[in-house]
């Protein structure tokens, strides 16, 4: 039984109920030590079941092995350079494919698995002559790429947007942004810690360019993310306008909300500071939030207000829904459509023309 299935939580609830009945039934026939033991077990079971449900929502530990300390990438394959992912055997037409690879952190030092969405067009005869645009989709904290896959159904959504012509076939990368699930990096290079920014903006793009048929030029690279990932997407876009042309933030913040270790959370890793102290690059941003999400709404509006040409900003507001998956499920379609309209199209490789 998978750790994030509904039935796991149901089993937890049954355990709580069984222990509760046991306590009520055996109270008069046992001594105080056994009673205390039973009470402790109940407390433990309630806490564990609650934790399972929270984990189910955030996908912090998408599998039992992840919980026991193994990285998620046991089943990830390390493809040989230029090895083509095989065509899916049993997929329906128009259905993209999720493949997991191990991406070594040559510059950033983080070696993590990364799931990749390959659009259906990637496998067609015509598509095999093309290089595709790329979107890096970043998860929240706590969270993992599995949150995009299981909670936000990113593959199904991308399939639909592409099939309806609102989005061009695009390769979407789902990297981890921290080597330690309980360490919130906010995609920064933490002083004395993981170098997440370098991994996401150097190692991941370089790996994708050498292993996948994707475009290498900035005009075809974009970022997106929800919650902490929204901050990441906007911050990385402003810090690396030479590598990315556009970003879409879903309920993102104006600052990382962590201590990076070099006080950069107040300066170079603070979007509000950047927009007022550093020359603004010619990039495009889509900023979405829910009107009743206090913090993300304040941060997003701050950024939209500070943005000046040549940077362009489009805003999108869900009337209510807070800081929840329900909001992001509504936002992801419009965000991906907008991104695709601001990224260069799939095209034959520049060398061929």
């Amino acid at each position, binding site marked *: 039984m998978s750790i994030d299935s509904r039935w796991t939580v149901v089993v937890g609830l049954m355990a709580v109920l069984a222990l509760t009945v046991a306590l009520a039934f055996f109270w008069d026939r046992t001594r105080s030590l056994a009673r205390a033991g039973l009470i402790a077990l109940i407390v433990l079971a309630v806490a564990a079941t609650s934790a399972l449900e929270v984990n189910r929502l955030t996908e912090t530990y998408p599998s039992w092995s992840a919980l026991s300390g193994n990285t998620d990438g046991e089943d990830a394959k390390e493809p040989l350079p230029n090895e083509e992912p095989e065509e899916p055997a049993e997929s329906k037409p128009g259905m993209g494919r999720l493949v997991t690879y191990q991406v070594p952190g040559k510059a950033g030092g983080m070696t993590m698995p990364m799931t990749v969405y390959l659009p259906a067009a990637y496998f067609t005869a015509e598509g095999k002559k093309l290089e595709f645009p790329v979107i890096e989709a970043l998860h929240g904290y706590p969270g993992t790429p599995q949150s995009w896959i299981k909670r936000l159904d990113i593959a199904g959504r991308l399939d639909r947007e592409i099939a309806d012509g609102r989005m061009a076939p695009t390769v979407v990368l789902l990297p981890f942004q921290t080597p330690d699930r309980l360490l919130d990096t906010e995609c920064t290079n933490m002083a004395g810690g993981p170098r997440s920014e370098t991994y996401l903006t150097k190692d991941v793009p370089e790996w994708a360019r050498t292993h996948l048929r994707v475009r290498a030029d900035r005009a075809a690279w974009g970022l997106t993310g929800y919650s902490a990932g929204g901050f990441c997407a906007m911050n990385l876009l402003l810090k690396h306008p030479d590598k990315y042309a556009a970003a879409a933030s879903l309920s993102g913040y104006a600052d990382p909300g962590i201590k990076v270790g070099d006080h950069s959370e107040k300066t170079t890793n603070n979007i509000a500071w950047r927009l007022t102290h550093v020359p603004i690059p010619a990039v495009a941003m889509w900023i979405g939030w829910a009107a009743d999400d206090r913090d993300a709404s304040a941060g997003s509006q701050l950024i939209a207000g500070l943005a000046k040409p*040549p940077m362009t900003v489009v805003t999108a507001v869900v009337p209510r829904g807070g800081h929840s998956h329900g909001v992001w499920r509504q936002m992801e379609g419009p965000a991906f459509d907008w991104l695709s309209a601001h990224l260069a199209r799939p095209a034959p490789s520049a060398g061929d023309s």
Partner: protein
Amino acid sequence: VSLTGLPLILLTWVLVIVAVVATVRWWRLSGRRRVPVRVGGLVLIELLVVAGVGLIVNREDSFYPSWQALGGLRNSVTVPSAPTGRLDGKLDGHVPVTWSPPEAAGWHLAGPPLLIAPADYAAQPDRTFPIVIVLTAATDIRPASDAVTVVLHPTPRTNVLSTPGKGPSPGAPAHPTPSRSPSARTNVLSTQTASPPGARPGSSSGGQNVRSTQPGTVPGAPPAGATGSSPGARPGGSSGGQNVRSTQPGTVPGARPTGATGSSPGARPGGSPGGQNVRSTQPGTPPTSPPGNPPGNPSGGTNVLSALPDLLARDARVTNSVVILADPEWLALAKTWPGHPPVIAGHDGPAFEKAARDLPAPLAAPQKLPS
């Protein structure tokens, strides 16, 4: 009762106490009801404690600020209907169509702009296409595929930023002049309309003669404003002919805010390139603009041509993604375009292929949220 309010949290914890007291009070109930009562009490306590903790956490981080948020959301995503252009009927592919928006008066071209739709323009009525602008003297343009091509024949006065008096001065086209106020702009326009737009630059003092020969070379492009050109493209509503131009000083100021008529997202603060509204506020930017802001940009405030994507969006299914192809003599002009779209030299096949690479694919109308 608010999901994140203190009353609900306090109520929950008061109920916890009540449940504990009641469970203890009836713990030793005699008879068959003893175990069920105990189980009921304990389960109630467990539920209330979990709810109490959850409410506090939710209040701190406002994950679910309301009961509606918790219970599922009404979908606020909309799919706008497919756009239409007023020239859609004429733009059915690879045949140049003259395009004469009244605003072209301010562009000082050697002839009206030509529009060339891609081959599949009519076959894909739900798609909007990016724009390839060609600044050239040539007329035999092989149009772009998967983009709407706009051919502009610039003159030395097509300096998008300069005043008419300044146009002819050598080197001026490349150098943006300081921003002008919107009202100053309007004046520029109305004084210019005294001479027909696309007028021979020869009439302007010192105009290069090379250009002045050009209008004659434009095939099928009789002097600007000819009757064949875009019907309905004139908000002024005046009926065809060159007369339109002479009446323009009156119509032009009214015609300016046309950017607002399109769906143009450019009208937003800090909006996309080509948004006129954004630019008209720009003269105020210098005090707040950060040091090192690209020097070319603020002067985009008076760039008449920058409104082209918004104007074109009324008449054809286009986005405001732009690539500019320019003959060598117009490269400097192209580089003053606000928003810094890619600029490619020449207009041969490879240049068009390169332009296509830089542009988004033709797409159906995006899903939208309220903004």
